[in-house]
């Protein structure tokens, strides 16, 4: 399956990953519309920064994913085809138990349309996830294991 690895020695903290993540998960997938005219989706990758050190982090798609086991409704599941940990927004009730148990802080409240959580889905419609494809300095790389 696809995994995304941050490389902090190359990250410049530009947050383009966050911006392109938001665009990719927006309705129009248009950068201006996504930020100015539509309900802005929650970012599924986050740049952590302290001084000159920064890196981008998103869901690790853990092999033993605590969010799947803890999910109250059964919405959080592993996609049998891709191996990605995905949240079924129809079944998610917004109880935040996944936020309570994610060791990476990679699940966020996404209340733009209804009360659910948002997290990295590895951009199933793209060959390369938006954050990786748009990183200007290869600080996010994609590996397949």
């Amino acid at each position, binding site marked *: 399956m696809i995994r995304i690895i941050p490389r902090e020695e190359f990250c410049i903290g530009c947050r383009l990953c966050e911006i392109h993540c938001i665009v990719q998960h927006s309705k129009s997938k248009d950068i201006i519309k996504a930020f100015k005219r539509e309900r802005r989706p929650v970012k599924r990758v986050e740049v952590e920064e*302290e001084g000159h050190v920064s890196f981008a982090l998103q869901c690790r798609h853990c092999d033993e994913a*605590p969010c799947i*086991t803890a999910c*109250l409704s059964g919405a959080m599941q592993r996609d049998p085809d891709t191996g990605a940990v995905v949240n079924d927004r129809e079944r998610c*009730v917004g109880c*935040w138990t996944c*936020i*309570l148990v994610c060791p990476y802080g990679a699940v966020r409240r996404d209340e733009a349309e209804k009360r659910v959580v948002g997290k990295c889905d590895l951009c199933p419609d793209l060959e390369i996830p938006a954050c990786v494809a748009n*990183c200007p300095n290869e600080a996010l790389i994609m590996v397949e294991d």
Partner: protein
Amino acid sequence: MDAYDYAIVGNSAAAINACDALRSRDPGGSIALFCEEKHRCYSRPLISYLVAGEINTQGMYYRPSNYYRSINVEFHKGTRVDSIDPAKKILTTAGGGKIKWRKLLLATGFTPFFPPVEGLEEIDYLTFISWDDAKRMLSLTSRPVNALVVGAGLIGMKAAEALHARGAVVTVVEKMERVLPQALDERASGLVADRCGGMDIQIIAGESVSRLQSRGGNKGRAVLENGSEIDFDLLVMAVGVRPRTELAEAAGLPCAGGIQVDQYQRTAVADIYAAGDAVRAMDVVIGEPAVNALWPVAALQGKYAGRNMAGEEIPYPGCNSMNSVEFFGLPVLSAGIVNPPDDGYEVITRLGEGGDYRKAVLRGDVIVGMLMTGKIERAGILTSLIQERANVRRIKNFLLEEGFGHINFPRSVRRDRIVDAVAGLRGAEVTRGQGG
């Protein structure tokens, strides 16, 4: 007599996660699951969402409608198990059916518990733990009613919130001095109570019901210790729950406030396992077995029970008392020890705007508890540090910052957690972006 490789008593978080684990490791073993309720597996904590109209009945189900068939589990719904014979490895159902099993899982859950109150038996009161309870609450609140909830724990408070959503006038009586006395600390209790007050839910804390008088059917009057009286059309008893151990006890399994299990979820009797709310299992924070009757804990125990029943030897990693709940739009997340029992703990707090509040509890340099309300993003990082019994001496000052994260960890720890923890990454095929 029907015979199965695996028999499971129960049909909730522990039972279903055990089924999944069993099936993934033993594709051919026969599994029979017995459940006294008539519903296929649903999520118990969602009954308050159902009553409040936030989800529909389809949203209640934990697994798709073809679940049992899809993993080849024989689902015996509406079939209570009356007794088990550990020596002969036979269970007997309420209908007198006898079933032989090779390995058995007890996932019998919890049951409401309250001390006797004078007059309670004359009233058709409600509990709030099952789908059937939710259905009764829905039908009894089809017109506005005066509702009294006894007990301001998690179940009582979610019942109060659901009743409010149904247009009821709600009063909550709690014998401790504040709402959610176990799950929350004083400040967080206050934040929740404020929200309730804003919704015209009356909270009477530090008071007990001394007796009840029936006014026919569901209706009655509560007389409090202080002599005041409350008339109600609907009474919800939510004082507490206890592990359901009668089946295990009758079979001679040691149960001291919960079915005893070892680290492999095995009971004291060979080939009988137990998991979930009925069980006392390792709590990593308090360092000894405890009952944590919580959905995520039950699910995790079920998963490990299933693996071990299928022949693996993989110890349950232990859990802690962790909870996520929302009251009137205020998310409240907690893990581990929230109310330190003595002075041997260090408490760090951070109070933000509105409902934002954060607290960490440390024992020495080890984080043993946390509480977050309002802005709850990335709470799980703290939960994982609690679960790992991590030494946080070097990052103590950052724990409650909004930006707290892996950036605050030493670089080697960060690398371990983010990259090396993900199996199979070394030597994998690398793809880079084309750059901006």
